[in-house]
């Protein structure tokens, strides 16, 4: 037979090398790919879920997002690549289906239209249109071992400029707003960071690692549970605006009333 050197020159060699290269790359990708958090769609969602989700989608979402989730300009964006996390966030907080057009979809937790199962079916369908961020694993939303202080620092750096240092929300341009974060499910806060709904920027796992996100949520939950409520009633956590409202109404009002009382002539 010919020497290995001769084989190297064989026309088939190129194909073999190409085949090996592709195999190696594919294996390496599968091994090193950032795991899309456990509980991925592929694992738990079946074809039936996707089909049921499609049915729900056509009945409730297609008007604005198109019959194939491709979006209807200008009323609804394309959902290709939106991912299950976005669906879960928008639908389980009652933002979607949108009751009426407006500057922004409001959180409406008491008016959630679908059961958890239906929401996961919808999510499976949307995820089938193109992969996107998935619903976070429970280990990142159970707040076990989270660092509140680190979460506070990350919160002040990334979130406080819109949501306020006490998480009570703030105004954005033209009637839009950053909603309050008090009383929001940890999973929904996580999904919001992951998907950047409406005016919010996306904080993907490179900006804020899943642990950072969990820390932030733990910090918010600590505030929600009164971890920062010292010194009496907070007047809505609106800083000097609340103080001014108080001092100019009840505060000075009481003192003036007492001044009137003291200034009266004795009977």
């Amino acid at each position, binding site marked *: 037979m010919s020497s290995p050197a001769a084989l190297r020159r064989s026309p088939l060699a190129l194909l073999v090398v190409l085949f090996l290269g592709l195999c190696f790359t594919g294996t390496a990708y599968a091994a090193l790919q950032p795991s899309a958090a456990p509980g991925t769609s592929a694992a738990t969602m079946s074809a039936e879920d996707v089909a049921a989700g499609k049915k729900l989608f056509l009945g409730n979402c297609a008007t604005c997002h198109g019959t194939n989730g491709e979006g209807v300009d200008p009323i609804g964006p394309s959902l290709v690549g939106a991912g299950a996390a976005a669906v879960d966030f928008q639908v389980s907080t009652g933002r979607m289906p949108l009751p009426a057009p407006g*500057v922004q979809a409001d959180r409406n937790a008491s008016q959630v239209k679908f059961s958890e199962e239906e929401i996961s079916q919808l999510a499976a369908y949307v995820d089938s249109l193109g992969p996107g961020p998935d619903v976070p694993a429970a280990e990142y939303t159970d707040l076990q071992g989270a660092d*509140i*202080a*680190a979460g*506070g*620092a990350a919160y*002040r*750096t990334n979130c*406080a*400029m*819109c*949501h*306020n*240092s*006490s998480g*009570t*929300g*703030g*105004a*954005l*341009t*033209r*009637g839009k*707003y*950053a909603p309050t974060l008090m009383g929001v499910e940890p999973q929904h806060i996580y999904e919001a960071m992951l998907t950047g709904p409406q005016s919010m920027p996306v904080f993907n796992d490179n900006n804020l690692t899943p642990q950072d996100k969990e820390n932030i949520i733990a*910090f918010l939950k*600590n*505030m929600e549970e009164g*971890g*920062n*409520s*010292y*010194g*009496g*009633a*907070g*007047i809505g*956590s*609106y*800083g*000097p*605006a609340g*103080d*001014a409202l*108080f*001092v*100019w109404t009840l*505060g*000075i009002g*009481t*003192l*003036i009333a*007492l*001044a*009137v009382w*003291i*200034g*009266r*002539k*004795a009977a």
Partner: protein
Amino acid sequence: MSTNHVPQGAGHLRAETATAGAATATAPQPGWSPDQGSKDATFPKALVGVDERLGAAKMMRWGLGKVFPDHWSFLLGEIAMYSMIIALITGTFLTLWFVPSMGHVVYDGSYVPLKGVAMSEAYASTLDISFEVKGGLLIRQLHHWSALFFIVGIAVHAARVFFTGAFRKPREINWVIGVVMSLLACIEGFAGYSLPDDLLSGTGIRAMNGFMMSAPVIGTWMTFFVFGGEFPGESIITRLYIAHVLLIPAILVGLFVAHLILIVLPKHTQYPGPGRTNDNVAGFPVMPVYAAKAGGFFFVVFGITALVSALVQINPVWVFGPYDPTQVTAGSQPDFYMWFSDGALRLLPGWLEFELWGTTWSFNIFLGSLLLLPLVWLILGVYPFVEAWITGDKREHHLLQRPRNAPVRTAVGMAAISMYLVLALACINDILAIKLHLSINDLTILFRVLFFVLPVVVFFVVKRLCLSLQRHDRETVLHGWETGRVVRTEEGRFFEVHAPLDEYTRWSLVEYETPRPLGQLDGAPTDEHGVRRPAGPLTGLRNALSSFYYKDSITAVTPSELAAAHHHGEHEALETPEEAARIDQHGAPVSEAPGDDYYTKGLKAGRHS
């Protein structure tokens, strides 16, 4: 008070203590006798020696016999005074623990959400005051609430003085002192809430840094000078601290003493009322009634401030976190007294910043800060002098005006307040937007329009309200109260029975004067030879302003008018067109000024000596 002894020092005064109580010119309360308490009014032995050396009795006697009139609105200034004292006391407590340093430390206190976070010593020590020092948080909150009450007290007190004309001669200097104090109080407040070095206050310092930088040409140099280099540097907290605890309080307390002396030296102003004239004071001597009331009011103010501080959170620095120039929180506002300036910045359009000659000119910031801040206090300070010039009045005034009796001043004041309020509300446009579900952009446009439109509307509405109230007063004086009892006469005529007004009520309604426009007082512009009278360059302006102030005014009912109304015996006495015209304009000569002999004579006999 007898005047024919020559005072013989402290001993003489002690001998006279028995009658010291009678030193006032006021009608005492019924049942009060000048000799009361004289039996056991012996001077305590221990104090004799003190008095022989200090001669304090003389001053005490003068001071304690001083008469102050009774009115709740005179206590508004005391709210400010007592709040300042509370702030001084609590502030001293805080200095014992506060570390005015920007040195870096890592927090290891008991507040878990900040454990292990890097911060300045100033912030860490503020957290320690709040969480480790016994009673520290209460004192911190007392300090901040009393500071807010101090400035609110100043504001309502200044409004009282302005709208009642208490700033007129001879009290202009005291008005100016008060204006300077109000400016210092705001700076003091700003310096104070900047000290904790939390995220909110650091944002405020950043804004101040921007204000200074907007100064044309010298801005950058100035900020480097004040901050000791690039923002934030390591010295601003230390510098603000010394301003906050030493420099400004020292000036403030000095001016406060001067303010008090200038209140006590001339007699206190009083509202018009029975027996009250420009030459007397009706009220209580300091000892014992007024001292008890004023002293009691201190405890009332302290008590309310303490109650508020115990129940209502203020400036929770632990929520804001330590200052980091890369961070900011939504809803960042200064304390309310700085709002108007911040609001102006939010309203000023961005195109006011431009580049010229290789330099950036930030007029969008400069106008709302470095120009507006001094301008507001300058206008406040010069107002008494401007009004005196416009009025041409050089007399002393110890009798206050009811706001309605100075319609244009009241309207100008309210218009200015409305302008200030628009700016202040513009500063919380984000909070208004989120609370009222409005667009912040629409609010900004609304406030821009309101800034120019609202003062005009407020001016006309308030002026008309004042004039209507004055007309109503005239009506009441001339025809008495409406009783609501309608009577039908034999001829079938209906009329409402009016109850006559008693003299005492009437006094307060007629005891005011209405200045006339200067142009009309000066007479013809030429003298008897047809030569134009010499007129200064500002005469035209002065006459125009005077006419603006006093052309529409309603004079108090004069004795002759009252007599005429009584003579007619019926309510339509002054309904003739001539009368109506005379009320509106000064075209026709006005009879004698009100507050003249008729009224004073009528009551002098019985009321005061």
